[in-house]
């Protein structure tokens, strides 16, 4: 078997408070997980459990305190050049048009047919007619689609997604989820998808990993989602197997969510 697309091996991240070096916070502790080539893996966990930290480590934006990241078998140094990253927050450059934003990565790499590729991707995400709009002239959903096109236009081997649809309304979200699934179905890239929404995680992934509540969160459960593909995220939620999986994962997740919630209350007091 060939090396997995992405492997996190014993990753721990401890943050030190700059103003007060005695204050340490361990976000994630001894996390190991593997995403095979062409596999769609979701990570779920209560808020503040260090999901985004893991993704930043996988992207090479953050160096772990200990542990190692392997990309197709090779240890990762610096930025992960084979990965595309879709951020949770607004990440488009506001001074570039939608087309300009999709072109950006291709331009940085000196691609000769940047414009043609970018136009093609904009069409694929349904924004062919909106290339000349600036981000502030687009709705939230359209901005997310632009960001999706921006990431996918580079044809990365690994796609990292950090709650990409959490800011969208339910309807737009379902449309986007289906779009992403359809695009993924064609290309079969390795995807590491972070979410706090269990429905979304099960509906989209091959495998769901549950993280414990922070601090020092670590995987506490792993479930293989054996639902048939291609899926429709709305339809799949009514299948008996989905309900079964949901119940099984929720049983593990619920205690952690309550723990995380209790901790946040404590902090607030």
């Amino acid at each position: 078997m060939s090396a997995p697309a992405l492997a996190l091996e014993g990753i721990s991240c401890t943050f030190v408070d700059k103003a007060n070096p005695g204050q340490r916070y361990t976000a994630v502790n001894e996390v190991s997980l593997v995403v095979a080539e062409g596999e769609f893996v979701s990570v779920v966990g209560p808020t503040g459990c260090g999901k985004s930290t893991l993704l930043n480590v996988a992207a090479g934006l953050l160096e772990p305190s200990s542990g190692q990241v392997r990309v197709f078998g090779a240890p990762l140094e610096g930025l992960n050049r084979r990965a595309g990253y879709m951020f949770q927050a607004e990440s488009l450059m506001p001074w570039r048009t939608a087309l300009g934003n999709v072109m950006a990565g291709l331009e940085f790499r000196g691609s000769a047919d940047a414009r043609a590729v970018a136009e093609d991707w904009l069409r694929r995400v349904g924004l062919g007619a909106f290339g000349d709009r600036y981000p502030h002239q687009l709705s939230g959903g359209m901005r997310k689609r632009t960001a999706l096109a921006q990431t996918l236009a580079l044809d990365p081997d690994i796609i990292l997604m950090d709650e990409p649809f959490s800011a969208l309304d339910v309807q737009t979200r379902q449309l986007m989820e289906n779009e992403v699934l359809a695009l993924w179905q064609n290309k079969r890239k390795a995807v590491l998808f972070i979410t706090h929404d269990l429905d979304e995680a099960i509906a989209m992934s091959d495998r769901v990993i549950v993280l414990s509540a922070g601090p020092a969160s670590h995987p506490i459960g792993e479930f293989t989602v054996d639902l048939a593909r291609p899926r429709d995220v709305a339809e799949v939620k009514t299948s008996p197997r989905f309900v079964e999986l949901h119940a099984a994962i929720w049983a593990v997740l619920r205690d952690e969510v309550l723990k995380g919630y209790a901790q946040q209350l404590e902090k607030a007091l």
Partner: protein
Amino acid sequence: MSWRPNPKNLRVWQVGLLAALFVFWHVMTKPGLLPPFMFDNDRQAAFFFGEPLKVASRIWNWFVVEADIYRHLAVTLIETLLAFGVGSVLGLGAGLWLALSPMASAILEPYIKALNSMPRIILAPIFAVWFGLGIASKVALGVTLVFFIVFFNVYQGVKEVSPVVLANARMLGASPRQLLRHVYLPSATSWVFSSLHTSVGLAFVGAVVGEYLGSSQGVGYLILQAEGTFDINTVMAGILVLTAFALVLDAAVGRIERRLMKWQPRAGETEKL
């Protein structure tokens, strides 16, 4: 149509107010029109405040009869534009450099604070000695005024680049040079343009004050000359011309700003889809 002020007759009221001010000025200063109540004789009001009709004829002379003000206006305009251009480029460069190099910024911080809090108009005599009485000394004065406005804005602009946009650009494969060109620079220039009105205004102040302190041409020079002979009407005329000129300049800046800042959302804009 109602005569009460409303959005429709706004212009009428604005022009009316201006006319009323000039009439008031005329009535208060015209010798012999009102019995003197502030001054000893009825010529003194005109001596101190000028007479609007004479001011107007002075302006008419400048622009139409003798047509000799254009040369001076051109000089003042060139000084303003040069001061703005040079000051902006220097401010942009220094702002980018210091914002991206924390060590340099830490070392230079007290000096920048000192230079900024210094009343820089006081440098005008030194510039006159260094650069002579020509255009260069006025440009230098304007540059010192513009530089800090642009510098602080750019510095702020670079510091406030969204970390997500930055991380995204890096993930898209931008090299450090591309980051500077495609992320820091556009973000910083947006701050430069947001301070455009202030910096063009200050460049203008630098030019006029520089001329006023010693020169051989420019509108500030005309005012200086007139003041030397107590020709208050010409001084007033010069002030009016400068004011109108500043308004035109500001309108031009506003137009340029709207063109360049197309990507920025404006309040009340509802063109979403």
